[in-house]
Structure formats: structure tokens, C-alpha cells
């Protein structure tokens, strides 16, 4: 029974983080049509910034906030500096191949990932270092018995839950959120409504950057921080987004939790070495059975 509880609670906490990563991916996919493979590189970079601040005696929460803000700025820079020039009219003439037009932004995001990793190595010597958690990562006790969940897990679940609530409010009840949804669904009509679709898209990148930063801050206490630690997170986040539906924000969150449970149960009931394979199998199954994801909608291709 305890192993089930362990798997369940750890799955929930991990799933919460995957949901964040997945959400960030889907935000950029819906807003800009690009799968940002550099996302976790951005997270790694901003977490290093936070780590540096903490090492120089700043409080955890100061570093936390600054990391989030850096995430937003970094996301905006990637859009303004790379993605916009890539998709500008001048460049689209060079690429007369339909499939190349979709692959070039992917390759570009991989380039950014490489650059961010190298910069992190150069600035901070690429050594693996620990990262603190604001809540002690020890199991919670009720009386004498240990619950299979730590204070830190609860913190993670709480933070992610809060983020999801804020995000939902933003998208459904604010004007900017409406503008963002509209820009992703129909850019032409949105432009005709007097809205600067380009700026809205950059905001989407910034929000995605913040979500990824948050994910980085929440996951590194457990995994330690080095230029490569977050790669796995990207792959899981991507799988989560595909499983839940790349076209659905709710779906990405759902996918994140599903993956969290899958990985956690494989870890506990099978063996840790099987995790990668389990992820691959899960991804392939999802792509074969329901490619648009659980909550995604089928894309109609008009000829």
C-alpha cells in the first residue's frame, strides 16, 4: 500500500511540474506555431541565475522572483531576436519548401538550446550544483507515521495549482487573454480588430518563458543543476503535450499529470531504467491511437 501511495504522491508532484513544462510548450505552439525545444534550456539558464543570487546571499524568494522575470525577458528575446526575423516576409521567399518552413524554426530552437547550454557552461563552469528548496524535502508526519509525501511536494503542487488558476483567469477573463486566444485562432480577424498580433505573440513567449522558469526552479532541488539536467524534462513535457493535445491548454495540463503518474508508477513498480522506454512507448501509442491528443481537436486540412 505504501508503494502505491508513494507512487501516487510523487506522481502528482512530478506531474505538476510536467504540466508546467507542457503548458509552456503549448502556449508557444498555439501562439506562434513553433515547438520551442529551447524551453528547458531557458529554464536551466534562469535557474542558474537564481542559484548565483542565492550563492551571493540573496534570499530564496528574491532569487525566485528574479528568475521568473528573467524567464519572461528571455522568452521575449527569443521571439523578437530569432523567431520574428525567421518568419518575416524576406525569409519566407527563401524557403519555398513547405516542410522546410516548419522545420527551420525547430532547428533554430535547437540552436538556441545549444547556445544557452554553452553559455551556462562558460558563465558558471558547468559544474553540477545543488539547488535549495524553500520547504524541507522531508516526509510529512501525522503523529508517528510517515506519509509518502514531503513538504516540498505539497509546495510544488500548491504553486502549480495556483499558477494554473491564475492562467485560466488570465485567458478567460482578461482582455489580453482574449486577444491571445484570438490571435492564435485567427490572426487576420484579430488584426482587423485593431490588435497588434505580433506583440501579443511576444507576450505569449514571455509567459511561456516564465512557466518554464518556474518548472526549472521546482524541479532542480531534486535533480541538481547542470547544463544538461533539464533535457529529460523537455522530452517528458513534449510527450505530455502530445498526449494531452498540442492544440489545447487544458490538454497539456492533463497530459502532464498523466505522464507524471506513468513515470512514477514505472519507477516504483518496474525499474528506473525502464522509464525512457516507457515514455517512448507511451508517445508512440498516443501518436498512433489519437494523434491530436486527448483534448485536442482534429486539424482539418483544406486543399
Amino acid at each position, binding site marked *: 500500500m505504501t508503494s502505491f501511495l508513494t507512487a501516487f504522491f510523487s506522481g502528482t508532484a512530478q506531474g505538476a511540474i510536467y504540466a508546467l513544462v507542457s503548458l509552456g510548450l503549448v502556449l508557444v505552439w498555439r501562439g506562434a506555431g513553433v515547438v520551442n525545444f529551447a524551453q528547458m534550456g531557458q529554464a536551466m539558464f534562469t535557474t542558474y541565475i537564481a542559484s548565483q543570487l542565492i550563492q551571493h546571499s540573496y534570499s530564496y524568494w528574491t532569487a525566485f522572483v528574479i528568475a521568473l522575470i528573467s524567464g519572461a525577458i528571455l522568452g521575449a528575446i527569443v521571439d523578437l531576436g530569432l523567431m520574428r526575423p525567421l518568419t518575416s516576409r524576406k525569409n519566407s521567399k527563401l524557403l519555398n519548401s513547405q516542410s522546410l518552413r516548419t522545420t527551420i524554426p525547430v532547428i533554430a530552437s535547437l540552436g538556441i538550446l545549444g547556445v544557452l547550454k554553452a553559455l551556462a557552461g562558460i558563465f558558471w563552469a558547468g559544474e553540477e550544483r545543488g539547488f535549495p528548496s524553500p520547504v524541507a524535502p522531508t516526509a510529512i508526519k501525522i503523529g508517528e507515521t510517515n506519509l509518502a509525501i514531503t513538504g516540498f511536494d505539497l509546495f510544488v503542487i500548491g504553486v502549480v495549482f495556483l499558477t494554473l488558476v491564475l492562467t485560466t483567469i488570465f485567458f478567460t477573463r482578461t482582455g489580453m487573454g*482574449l486577444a491571445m*486566444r484570438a490571435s492564435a485562432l485567427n490572426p487576420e*480577424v484579430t488584426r482587423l*480588430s*485593431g490588435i497588434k498580433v505580433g506583440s501579443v505573440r511576444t507576450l505569449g513567449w514571455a509567459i511561456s518563458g516564465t512557466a518554464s522558469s518556474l518548472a526549472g526552479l521546482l524541479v532542480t532541488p531534486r535533480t541538481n543543476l547542470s547544463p544538461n539536467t533539464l533535457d529529460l524534462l523537455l522530452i517528458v513535457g513534449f510527450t505530455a503535450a502530445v498526449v494531452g493535445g498540442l492544440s489545447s491548454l487544458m490538454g497539456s495540463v492533463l497530459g502532464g499529470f498523466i505522464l507524471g503518474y506513468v513515470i512514477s508508477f514505472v519507477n516504483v513498480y518496474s525499474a528506473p531504467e525502464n522509464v525512457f522506454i516507457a515514455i517512448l512507448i507511451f508517445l508512440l501509442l498516443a501518436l498512433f491511437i489519437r494523434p491530436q491528443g486527448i483534448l485536442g481537436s482534429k486539424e482539418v486540412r483544406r486543399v
Partner: protein
Amino acid sequence: MLAISNLVTEFDSVKALNGISFQAKPGLITTVIGANGAGKSTLLRTISGLEKPSSGSIKWFDEELTSKSVESIVRNGIAHVPEGHAVISQLSVAENIELGGLFRRRSFRGDLAIATKEVYELFPILFERRNEAAGSLSGGERQMLAISRALVSRPKLLLLDEPSLGLAPMISAQIISIVNNLCRATGLTVLLVEQNANTALTVADHGILLALGKVVADLPAKEMIADSSLRAAYLGY
């Protein structure tokens, strides 16, 4: 207010607009008619900025529009309802209308509420269905929604591209009559592109006839109706 001179818009070296010049008549309905491919839609799309002309000028109250972005042209008081029920199907009716007025919210918050109310009074069926997804509306209702989205920003110039496309004659007549009344009541200037020249000329004050990207006639509507040779040559009746 709107002065177009020698406008040329090209698509891969095909001149859709080949030197168009005319002036809009403030407070009146001007209809742009002509055969398919004459350049009517392209004209509206060039005015609103969706297409960039290769030469010529569009002056809006003495400001040059050809170098401006779509968003800034809209914010300057020109609203464009493109052809084909330009609404966002996945959003609700209310959200579509809200979208149209978003950019004015910060400066005209109270005014936006009033504009929204007025639009619902114009098209009561939209108020009834305001929380439903726009994709579930009928063709006529969607067209009303598209026009509402444009109107809620209180434009000075309304560009209407084939509002009757795909609609039953009764419904399209209803819509055009509503637009007509609106124009008379508020002094809104309307540039109406229509395939059905007959209906268009009945309700319009002025007519511009396009053929192969050029202005062939620029006359008061009554005169255009009366000119049978013109009608026979370009409009087929």
C-alpha cells in the same frame, strides 16, 4: 476623408488594381461593383492594409495609409469586414464583439459598454445567443456578428466585403437595410462591395464600377442605374 489615387496592387506581377483613383463620400454609402476578378475585394484589402500596394496612395484625413500596419489603420477609424463571415468560431458571440472593441477599452471604457449595447439593439438575435460559440450561428447571424465586431469600435469608415455572400436574399436584404439605416442615423461612411449590383445600387448613394482593376465609372447611384449601356456592358442586365 478617404482619397485614393493611382493605387496599384500586384500579385506575382498580375495587377489586381491597376491605377485606381476615387474619393469616398462622407456619410454616404458608396458601392463598389463589377464582375468577378475586377478587383473589388483587393481594393478593400489594400485600404485596410491586409495587402500592400506596389504604388499609389491612400490618404485618410491627409495621413498616408499605405505604409501603416493593419492594426494601426483599424485604430485610426477604418473597420473592415472581409468576405466570408469573418468571425472566430471557437469564441463566443460576446467574446467576438468584445474583441472588436478591445483596443478602445483603455481610453473609452464606458463608451465601449454603450457601443456594445447599441450593437445588441441593432441585432437582437446576437444578444439572445451571446454566450454561444460563434461557430454555432447560422450564416446570417454570423454576418451580423462580423459587422457588430466592426461597429463596436465606432469606426468612421466601414468596409463591407460582399455581406450577402452565401445568404438567402431575405436575410441579406435585412442586413443591408440595417446597415443603410445605421448610415443614415449616425453618418457612418460605408464602402460596400457587392456582387449583386442591382440590390447594391438601390440602397447606395454612389457607385463605383470596376473592371480589370480600373475605375470605369464613378457616378451617383441613380445615374448608374439609369445608364443602360453601362449596365449592359459591365453588369450584364
